[in-house]
């Protein structure tokens, strides 16, 4: 039962989680209503299928002249998928996941009623722009939902079930499932624009989910090999006010003892330090790596990250 994480009702954590879900679902729904649905882009997922079905059922029902509402259809797929998911995979999907997909469907259909389906932002001439911004808003909304530790449900459940039986990696399967839905869009709409715009949306969505969950970090991890390590240490500790660790090493060429400095700096500090190292030891060896995430003294603490 380690998969379900329930916060105590009405605790601070509970409020934060549900606030994230409400805001995330709203942003997610708005992304679809403003940027995706009006242009028949099919970016995978249950709503992708919903968009296809919406077009196919145009004029079929007198009370839905433009077709079955996309949110409602998404909900109609999510409910059985979640039930099957729980049967096959065990209790993985908590109440937060269910609240998330119900809210998304409700927001999507309400917003559609308010703003209409006919090119609400006037982007019909620039669908490329719509797909980029659709990806950004959808990614941001999903990122917030994931932050609350809810899953997105929907087509990911299909991927999880296939993963269980085939033992293929889940990430790959999610891409396959979404690609099948994208190609469904191509088959139905018979226009190559659709899958290309859809892949742009999927790509941008993935990037923005990562950024939302990890943050954009401008910090760099450094390894410095220099004979002037004492001077460089003083600069880091006294002027930059950062910490660091000495790691003893041996030169591969002649086995000479070397001291490696392991430290983490931001971009500006890096520039200052590089200039300084260049003055005291132009032959120093410095490798700079992009750090996705730094937790600990002088940076965001691990405690902040886990409890947010």
């Amino acid at each position: 039962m380690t998969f379900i994480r329930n916060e105590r009702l009405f605790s601070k954590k509970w409020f934060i989680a549900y606030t994230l879900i409400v805001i995330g679902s709203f942003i997610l729904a708005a992304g679809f209503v403003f940027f995706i649905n009006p242009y028949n882009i099919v970016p995978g997922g249950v709503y992708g299928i919903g968009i296809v079905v919406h077009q196919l059922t145009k004029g079929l029902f007198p009370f839905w002249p433009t077709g079955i509402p996309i949110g409602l259809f998404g909900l109609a797929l999510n409910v059985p998928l979640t039930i099957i998911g729980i049967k096959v995979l065990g209790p993985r999907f908590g109440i937060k996941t269910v609240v998330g997909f119900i809210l998304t469907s409700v927001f999507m259909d309400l917003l559609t009623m308010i703003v209409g389906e006919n090119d609400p932002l006037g982007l019909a001439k620039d669908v490329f722009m719509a797909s980029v911004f659709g990806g950004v808003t959808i990614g941001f909304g999903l990122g917030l939902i994931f932050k609350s530790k809810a899953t997105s449900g929907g087509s990911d459940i299909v991927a999880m079930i296939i993963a269980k039986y085939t033992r293929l990696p889940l990430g790959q399967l999610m891409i396959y499932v979404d690609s099948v839905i994208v190609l469904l869009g191509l088959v139905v709409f018979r226009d190559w624009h659709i899958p290309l715009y859809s892949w742009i949306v999927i790509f941008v969505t993935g990037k923005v989910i990562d950024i939302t969950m990890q943050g954009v970090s401008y910090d760099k991890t450094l390894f410095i090999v220099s004979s002037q390590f004492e001077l460089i240490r003083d600069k880091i500790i006294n002027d930059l006010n950062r910490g660091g660790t000495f790691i003893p090493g041996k030169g591969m060429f002649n086995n000479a003892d070397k001291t490696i400095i392991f430290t983490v700096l931001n971009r500006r500090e890096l520039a200052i330090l590089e200039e300084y190292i260049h003055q005291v030891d132009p032959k120093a060896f410095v490798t700079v790596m992009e750090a996705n995430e730094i937790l600990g003294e002088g940076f965001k603490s691990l405690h902040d990250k886990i409890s947010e």
Partner: protein
Amino acid sequence: MAFLQKDKVFTRKWFYSYALIVAGTFLVSLGYVYFITPYRIVPGGIYGISIVLHHLYGWPVGLTALAFNIPLTIIGTRVLGPRFGSKTVAGFVLTSLFVDLLSFYSGFKPLVDSDPLLSSLFGGALIGAGVGLIFKSKATSGGSDVIAMIIARYTKLPLGQLMMGVDSVIVLIGFLAFGDWRIPLYSWLTIFVMGKVIDAVLSGISYEKTILIVSDKHEEIRDKIIRDLNRGGTFLHGEGMYNGSPKKVIFTVVNRRELAMLEEFINQIDPKAFLTVMDANEILGQGFKSLKDKLED
């Protein structure tokens, strides 16, 4: 002769190499024919020049490129020695063939009309994926890179810069020939996407993270990594720069999900731990793909 890597004929490796070349050249050709040529995008290279000549004089793109590639390879071999193997030759001959065949099939029409931005991105992605596969077979791309190699030999300028220089000159030729500022801008986008996709194909997209952990509770963290996550790791014996106290640094690689579990565990036992998380482009070794697998696939 260390440059020339020959696989023995009809071995498994040989078939694999040539399958990569056929698939790669086909993807490259799809990219040029359906996304790049119809929009007059000139993304550097021999194909860039051929696209310009095609639009000015109606010459077939593939044949024109072949007419450049053959003498360039001969001159390259003369000046630089036997660097270009039969795989390189097979690569550029197949590309020319596919490009001209597909052009007839497509009727010189783009896959999607009225969106050059979309086409420059997807063209770059397809060509990048194809070139990545060709490089995987250890063939070189030939073409304009040979010019850069020859200039590098006589001027001693860095090769990477020269390749960019040669491509930029070709992009500017496109601008001069068509007199439209959108051409170089779309072309640079294509070149950028191509580069990113080539890297992704060659080193793979990895969701693994390299982490360095500095914590006084290193024994407990070690146990968690070894027992629960089933991963290995290395202790580095360091010394705090501030007060010279001995520190153990844990160096390990985990995937995204394991990272979340490990962070939660570290927070419980040592909230003041210091950890830095880096994207690992490629991990080879125990618990991951082995170096042997990589070099033999």
